[in-house]
């Protein structure tokens, strides 16, 4: 079962008690953002805001996938599924053959219910929220994706790249050069002096949005089909040679200019800070806007954990790392990021069968396409449960040698790291560190390796069984 649009998903959220419908008027200028922010910090239900100041007929859905519960609902799972259960299902679906999208006629595409062209396609007709006080502008695109095409081989990419309304026909945003869309723009269109056609999809169905912010090499439309278990339905754009999901709420079409850049940022970011410098960034010129009746603009409010960027990027970055390490034959038990680390820290479990396996893991993941987005790798052995915070912090603080177990690398970064100096942010510096929390394999297991002192490891099986059998008799409550 897969939701074809956010409207079906909203019904499912409601049925699971994960929706709050707000019928009183909400101001697009900070009030809506503040509601979504508080929801993220409380890990609360998603707000559906039905009346927006200055914009009758428009609606907002805030914090669409900001909890594991909502992620489970997106996948049609029991809302109370555990993280490993969600990951198992996600992997099952994303390991099947790609599912190509299908093209539908405009008449079957709700996103064509309203079409604004030329000077009528004015961005300020849409309720772009002022998400945080102090942002550089109104961000229309916070939970969305940008469709682009490679001019040489026709490969289509969907990437979630934020966009700020600059003026009626212009948006700006950081199309970072190592993203798939950025590589094609900065590497191909720009040097040739050609504008890059784009279509921004706002309010996509939940699985398309998940695909667009996942770092998978599989084309995102096929990836969505794999997650859905059926092809995603696309429709042709009005003014550019691109296709967009037929059931999206709002579509903005236009061109990225090869020779113009304009101010963008600051903006509240997934790290929980406003960090990346205000800078001259990519300039998107608008030619057409199409939208459904009573369109629902999605709002993600990035800031301190937990928002959907932190949750989903943590989730999908780890799964890609897991696949990468397994493809290289590294005997890992898994990879996990706490969303609270703002996907900066990954815990990787491994059977330490040879020396320096932690360094090999770190070099692989830092050197991969995923590398710019995180900078701390904690490698634990296969006895440590990577999902268990207590066990991981215990391993880190007891098994990592401060002089021999911590290694620092240079890598690729982003302008978003709060600890970088201003100059380092502009250069996208990427210092990285690995914490090796495995005991050296050449230690003598009898005389050198410390023995973990826990109920499960230092008592004979019969004593454990006896204590467990008598637990309530002793007077303790069963857990």
């Amino acid at each position, binding site marked *: 079962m897969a939701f074809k649009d956010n409207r079906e998903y909203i019904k499912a959220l409601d049925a699971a008690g994960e929706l709050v419908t707000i019928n009183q008027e909400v101001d697009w*200028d900070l009030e809506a953002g503040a509601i979504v922010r508080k929801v993220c910090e409380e890990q609360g239900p998603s707000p559906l805001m039905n009346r927006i100041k*200055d*914009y009758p007929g428009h609606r907002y859905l805030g914090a669409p996938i900001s909890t594991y519960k909502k992620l489970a609902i997106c996948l049609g799972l029991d809302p109370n599924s555990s993280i490993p259960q969600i990951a198992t299902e996600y992997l099952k679906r994303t390991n099947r053959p790609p599912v190509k999208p299908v093209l539908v006629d405009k008449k079957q595409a709700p996103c064509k219910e309203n079409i604004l062209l030329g000077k009528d396609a004015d961005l*300020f*007709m849409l309720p772009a929220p*002022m998400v*945080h*006080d*102090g*942002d*550089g*502008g*109104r961000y229309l695109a916070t939970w969305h994706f940008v469709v682009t095409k490679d001019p040489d081989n026709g490969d289509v990419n969907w990437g979630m790249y934020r966009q700020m*309304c*600059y*003026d*009626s026909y*212009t948006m700006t945003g950081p199309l970072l050069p190592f993203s798939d869309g950025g590589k094609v723009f900065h590497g191909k269109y720009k040097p040739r002096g050609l*504008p890059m056609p784009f279509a921004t999809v706002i309010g996509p169905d939940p699985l398309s949005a998940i695909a667009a912010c996942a770092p998978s090499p599989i084309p995102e439309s096929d990836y969505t089909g794999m997650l859905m278990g059926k092809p995603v339905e696309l429709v042709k754009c009005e003014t550019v040679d691109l296709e967009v999901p037929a059931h999206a709420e709002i579509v903005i079409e236009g*061109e990225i*200019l090869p*020779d*113009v850049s*304009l*101010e963008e940022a*600051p903006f509240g970011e997934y790290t929980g800070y*406003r*960090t990346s*410098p*205000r800078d001259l960034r990519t*300039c998107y*010129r608008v030619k057409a806007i199409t939208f459904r009746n009573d369109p629902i603009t999605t709002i993600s409010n990035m800031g301190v954990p937990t928002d959907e960027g932190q949750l989903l990027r943590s989730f999908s970055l780890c799964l890609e790392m897991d696949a990468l390490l397994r493809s290289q034959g590294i005997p890992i038990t898994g990879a996990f990021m706490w969303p609270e680390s703002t996907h900066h820290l990954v815990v990787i479990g491994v059977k330490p069968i040879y020396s320096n396996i932690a360094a090999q893991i770190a070099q692989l993941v830092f050197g991969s396409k995923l590398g710019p987005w995180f900078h701390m790798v904690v490698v634990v052995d296969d006895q440590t449960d990577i999902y268990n915070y207590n066990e991981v912090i215990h391993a880190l603080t007891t098994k990592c040698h401060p002089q021999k177990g911590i290694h620092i690398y240079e890598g690729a970064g982003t302008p978003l790291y709060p600890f970088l100096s201003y100059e380092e942010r502009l250069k996208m510096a990427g210092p990285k560190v690995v914490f090796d929390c495995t005991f050296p394999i050449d230690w003598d297991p009898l005389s050198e390796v410390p023995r973990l002192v826990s109920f499960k490891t230092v008592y004979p099986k019969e004593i454990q069984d006896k204590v467990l059998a008598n637990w309530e008799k002793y007077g303790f409550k069963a857990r």
Partner: protein
Amino acid sequence: MMLHYDVFVNSLADLPEDKELQLALRDLTPGKYKYCYKNVKALVSPDPKKYEQGLQVRFGRGQIHPAPYSIKVLEQVERIPERWR
């Protein structure tokens, strides 16, 4: 004082008084077009009464400078070349 525009700067040194400056302003007029950018040539002053319109100053991470400036917009500037408009 009514604040008509705001502008982001790295430091107040970016806003010398009475010197013609090219600025990317945001329109603060309430309503649908609030925060729309306008590129202009203008004169500014830290004296909030010197010119007729109020200018809010913000720094690089969005922080508000507590003392509003005043501004006189001389002309609008188009930064997007004709061929893309």
